[in-house]
């Protein structure tokens, strides 16, 4: 185990996979500038800067993926994905099906998301739910350095298009990461970060830490909680979600993304259908407001659900 940042963990994952598989290529705005070490090791054909044009970056990834490469593209900030929705959703997501399985689209699209830099709603907008709603895509959003590494490696090896969201507040957060180049975290498995019996806190990204903080405080008061880190948002680890909530009977879902039609809605709906008889209390969602994120630092910070809100929510239902 070593302690490295999330950013370093991602770079390691990419370099290891490029070393392992000559079909892995990476490109995007500034990818070769930032990744000049990758250029040195893997050459300018496999590590490229691009023109400033998200649509063609994503489209090129899809075209390359269909014909033998395994592209990893960096589209910088989640709101910039809006320029690549056709390529990601209509092409990468649908063309395997529409071709009757003739073509596959093994590609990873990285973007950064969430509060932390005070740069406002055109940089800070949590859009992961859109891709959960779109068929044919997988969606990942880790919370620890080890998972960033292991999930990115798994995403690169996956035969399907994977949207990889990096919460910017975590980018420079240090964390323990296993040694060696075989640390893989399979897609589709949630992690139970803490065990308890009175309620389940379900989250992903930076608010996992908010939940852990709340859980700690609640524990002191004699209330114990499961804390489930989803890690992969599509496919959702429904089994782990149901197992925990069937045990505790209570759930609070926490994420920064605005509420309507978000991941929290999906989980709540799964519970209302499949864990109904186990539920002892309303299923609560704590989310960012359904409003663009302000740049102003205090407002940006307040946008994100915090431990106090989580504690109050849990107290309200136990």
């Amino acid at each position, binding site marked *: 185990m070593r302690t490295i940042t999330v950013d370093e963990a991602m770079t390691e994952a990419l370099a290891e996979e490029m070393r392992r598989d000559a079909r892995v290529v990476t490109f995007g705005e500034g990818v070769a500038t930032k990744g000049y070490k990758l250029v040195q090791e893997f050459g300018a054909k496999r590590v490229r800067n691009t023109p400033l044009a998200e649509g063609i970056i994503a489209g090129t990834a899809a075209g390359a993926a269909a014909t033998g490469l395994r592209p990893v593209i960096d589209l910088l900030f989640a709101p910039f994905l809006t320029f690549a929705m056709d390529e990601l959703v*209509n092409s990468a997501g649908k063309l395997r099906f529409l071709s009757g399985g003739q073509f596959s689209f093994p590609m990873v699209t990285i973007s950064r998301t969430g509060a932390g830099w005070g740069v406002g709603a055109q940089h800070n907008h949590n859009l992961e739910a859109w891709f959960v709603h779109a068929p044919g895509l997988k969606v990942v959003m880790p919370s620890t350095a080890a998972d960033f590494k292991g999930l990115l490696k798994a995403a690169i090896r996956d035969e*399907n298009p994977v949207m990889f969201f990096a919460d910017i507040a975590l980018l420079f957060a240090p964390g323990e990461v296993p040694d060696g180049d075989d640390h893989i975290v399979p897609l589709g498995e949630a992690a139970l970060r803490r065990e308890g019996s009175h309620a389940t806190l379900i989250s992903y990204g930076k608010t996992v830490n908010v939940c852990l903080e709340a859980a700690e405080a609640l524990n002191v008061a004699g209330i114990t909680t499961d804390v489930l880190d989803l890690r992969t948002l599509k496919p959702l680890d429904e089994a782990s979600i149901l197992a925990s909530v069937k045990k505790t009977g209570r759930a609070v879902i926490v994420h920064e993304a605005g509420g309507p039609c978000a991941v929290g809605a999906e989980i709540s709906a799964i519970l209302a259908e499949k864990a109904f008889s186990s539920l002892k209390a309303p299923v609560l969602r704590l989310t960012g407001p359904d409003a663009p994120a302000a740049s102003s630092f205090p407002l940006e910070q307040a946008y994100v659900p915090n431990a106090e809100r989580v504690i109050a929510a849990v107290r309200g239902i136990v």
Partner: protein
Amino acid sequence: MTTFDNAVETAADAKAVNTAVNTNAVQALEAMLLIRTFELKSAELRAKNMSPNMCTSVGQEASAVGVVRALGPNDLILTNHRSAGHLLARGADPGRIFAEIMGKATGYCKGKSGSLHISVKELGVILTSTIVGGELSLAPGVAMSIDVLGGDAIVTVFFGDGAATEGIFHEALNLAAVWNLPVLFVCENNQWQAYVRRNETMLVDHVSEWAKPYGVPAKTVDGNDVLAVSAAAEEAVAYVRANRKPYFLETYTYRLRGHMEPDDQAYVNPEELAHWKGRDPIPALEARLVDEGVVTAGQLDEIKERVRLKVEEAAAFAIESPYPSFAEMTTDVYA
């Protein structure tokens, strides 16, 4: 062959060349007739409610045939919603195309695609995109695969004048130019974008004017003359193959039927339509080949009959084919 050999053209050579040219012309004619016959049958099936809405390329066959015949067997193709011509010219089985259009299990994509997204991996047809511009967005990536993995194949992407007004046109051209990707861009400028006249959407008459500033060689050819298209396409393909750089070929043509079957073309100026019907690429070539004695009227009839039979058989195959099972609704979504 040395340069010296090249310079001497004997009578035998000339004759051989002529025979080759003639064979090519006759084959091209048959290929165009196959497309025309196929698409008219398609429209007929639609009119009889035996098939859903679909787009024909009637009037544009010379473009499809001239370009596709210039490609090598390993070259890759992406195309748009008006793709039956490209598929047939590439040698696709008309029965499986009909079946796909009708949503039958024997279609190239198991009936999931319908007419609008057909791909045929074994023929190197990566994509029919019904998102206008989708073919342009994927083409550079397909060429990137060749660039990274090796080989001398090139990528041809067919798109319309309408696609040229989408932003992705700019992005695709520019990326191909900057990255030196082996892409042959073929813009089929048919004067229409669904129900909008092309000249309402751009101030240029030739889309090739837009390609030049990217540093991409660009040429416009009479898209209703299959021999002219052939010649231009051969030059273009040779350029892309040798230089590993993009080239832009515009085939200037006309969409003789409506945008999507059925379509009464009420919005089309009848004089303009009549003018272009007079420039139909097929009768023109037929007349020329008969005139020049390359084929006789009788041989022409034989070709037509062969094509007709092929299309009828294909339609019958498709009509008899089963629909996919309901289980196919959720297969092939993930690998």
